[in-house]
């Protein structure tokens, strides 16, 4: 390439620019290899390798297929699981809510009619769509993955381009395995250094969102890079990528490494034999070229990140646990919206979060419902008792996670401390089922959104890490988890 450029009669600066343009980011490599057609002045036709489907955003899409009298093009690339609407107790009984039951039935019926694998309520592989995808090797490096759910960004942890779509787009992918999308801009967020004790992936994500706001990455696809992500477990990377949407990004991704390949090896849907070799050929180049250009680059110091907690009604309203709630005048614009938010939460500017009362604790969701999250929670509550004023909902992300909790002996420890385990599902993250936090009550939650009423009408949510949730569960109030680490 360099020799070719020498032949051109260009100034050195021009040559540099051309060379840089030929360098590709991880995102470019995956995106470009999936473009079926580029529409002039329009979006790209992007081929989708894996499509995950759940009961809430798919029924109208299947109706659309029925109306056009067409079938799912590639059922073998489509995977259905029930999660948003499902109860988290007594899953062996019929679903009591008739509307939820109807939606779950519709998914089962549609999956069967189109020959899609379906992991419904009670199925051993059932769980939250973004937890089971990676568990069974559906999620792969370099893949394009979509689902009618904004937290599809989770799968980016494997170096996949994964993003949430609306129901019209679900219909597009079911019927043609493609989606029309303009290529987003590219942002790289590098976190250097290391994390202090008591600081984990959730804190990293809440920290980034607090710096960028909920719209700071809108229009971008993010690549996370740097020592902190290199050191992070696959579960941790999933937590960070999961929360990409909360800063407005369509998705986030991390280049696959040895950890990634070790994680996917031998899983049910991971390619085997020749197919693995063919995939490895593609995967071996899945990293951003040196000197590739991003539309925006941000660099942070990992050592400066504290355990984080939110105090307001969007995930960007987060602070380090030792800090006070910012004053309205220090917030860019939107003072009225800011004050409305604090008033909803029942907090004042300048308040400190430590010591705030807590009524509910929720451990679970596609953000923090994996085995590592339950290990972290258990580590803090071990040898302590659940506070009497706290109602705790511990909801594994899948049956596989539930089984691991039992097998690793975590369940015994949790029980000893006064906690119970519920059955898998999205649960109180969006409170579509009966797991609703009552009006005015405070929940410390490991989930992803603290919007007004998200966990039930009038509920108030504080987003935090599993260990911050554990610290609140045993003390009954917001507590710096570092004070409880043994």
């Amino acid at each position, binding site marked *: 390439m360099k020799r070719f450029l020498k032949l051109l009669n260009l100034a050195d600066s021009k040559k540099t620019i051309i060379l840089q343009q030929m360098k590709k980011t991880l995102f470019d490599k995956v995106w470009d290899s999936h473009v079926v057609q580029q529409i002039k002045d329009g979006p790209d*036709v992007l081929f989708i390798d894996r499509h995950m489907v759940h009961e809430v955003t798919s029924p109208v899409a299947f109706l659309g297929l029925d109306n056009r009298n067409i079938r799912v093009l590639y059922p073998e690339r489509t995977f259905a699981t029930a999660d948003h609407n499902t109860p988290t107790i007594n899953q062996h009984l019929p679903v009591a809510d008739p509307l939820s039951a*109807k939606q779950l039935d519709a998914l089962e019926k549609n999956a069967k009619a189109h020959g899609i694998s379906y992991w419904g309520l009670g199925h051993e592989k059932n769980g939250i769509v973004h937890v089971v995808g990676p568990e069974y090797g559906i999620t792969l490096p370099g893949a394009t993955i979509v689902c009618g759910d904004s937290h599809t960004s989770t799968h980016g942890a494997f170096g996949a381009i994964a993003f949430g779509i*609306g129901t019209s787009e679900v219909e597009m992918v079911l*019927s*043609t395995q493609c989606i029309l999308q303009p290529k987003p801009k590219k942002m790289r967020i590098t976190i250097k250094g290391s994390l202090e004790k008591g600081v984990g992936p959730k804190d990293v994500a809440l920290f980034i969102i607090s710096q960028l706001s909920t719209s700071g990455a*809108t229009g971008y696809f993010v690549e996370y890079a740097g020592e902190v992500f290199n050191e992070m477990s696959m579960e941790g990377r999933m937590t960070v990528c999961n929360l990409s949407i909360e800063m407005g990004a369509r998705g986030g991704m991390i280049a696959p490494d040895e950890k990634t390949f070790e994680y996917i090896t031998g899983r049910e849907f991971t390619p085997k034999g020749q197919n693995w070799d063919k995939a490895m050929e593609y995967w071996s180049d899945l990293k951003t070229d040196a000197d590739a250009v991003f539309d925006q680059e941000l660099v942070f110091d990992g050592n400066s990140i504290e355990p984080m907690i939110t105090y307001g009604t969007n995930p960007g309203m987060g602070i380090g646990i030792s800090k006070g709630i910012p004053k309205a005048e220090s917030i860019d614009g939107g003072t009225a919206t800011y004050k409305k938010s604090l008033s909803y939460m029942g907090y004042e500017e300048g308040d400190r979060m430590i010591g705030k009362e807590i009524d509910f604790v929720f451990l679970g969701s596609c953000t923090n419902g994996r085995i590592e999250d339950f290990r972290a929670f258990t580590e803090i509550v071990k040898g302590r008792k659940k506070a009497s004023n706290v109602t705790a909902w511990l909801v594994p992300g899948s049956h596989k996670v539930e089984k691991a909790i039992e097998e690793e002996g975590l369940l015994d420890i949790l029980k000893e401390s006064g906690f119970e385990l519920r059955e898998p599902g999205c649960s109180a993250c969006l409170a579509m089922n009966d797991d609703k936090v009552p009006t005015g009550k405070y929940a410390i939650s490991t989930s992803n959104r603290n919007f007004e009423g*998200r966990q039930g009408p009038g509920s108030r949510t504080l987003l935090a890490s599993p260990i911050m949730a554990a610290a609140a569960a045993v003390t009954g109030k917001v507590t710096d988890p570092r004070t409880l680490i043994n």
Partner: protein
Amino acid sequence: MAYDKFKVLTSTAVPLPIENVDTDQIIPARFLKATERVGLGDNLFRDWRYNNDDSPKEDFVLNNAKFSGKILLGGKNFGSGSSREHAAWAIYDYGFRCVISSFFADIFRNNCLNIGVLPVQVSAEYSVKMFEAVNADPKTSITIDLENQKVTLDNTGESENFDINPYKKENMLNGFDDIDYLLNLKEEIKEFSKNTPL
């Protein structure tokens, strides 16, 4: 699903000057249980619009008889959060055909474009001007001209151009649907799929 063509819309507007309006406010999750796209407008902004006993909240703009129209004038970062297309459906079902904001969340914007609700992004200054005009006179007429990508406050003639992807614009003008486009590419897609590594 095919939708109504969008060419020129002249209407009054309903002002909602709140930032970061998320899709959980537009349509709370408990109303996502439908298996068909019907009746979502009744629950648009449910928890801002009604008390727990289902009585209307007097101070919410949708309950203020002074304001009506086919245009929803929203604050910055409108539609953040979940990918639920139900949010766009609820806005459409209520009777809105256009949402104006100084900034939209990505997925919400796409969802609107896919069902025939036009998201019009204006500058922060023009947004302020629009809120002022509508609040001063709820009968303020606004014209959205998609062909010319122009939004105008009809009283004063103050206007601003807005961006839209040319492909999406063509779809909106003609009521075309992405799926029809993709179905015509089926052979190319099948050919492409044979050579994918995954």
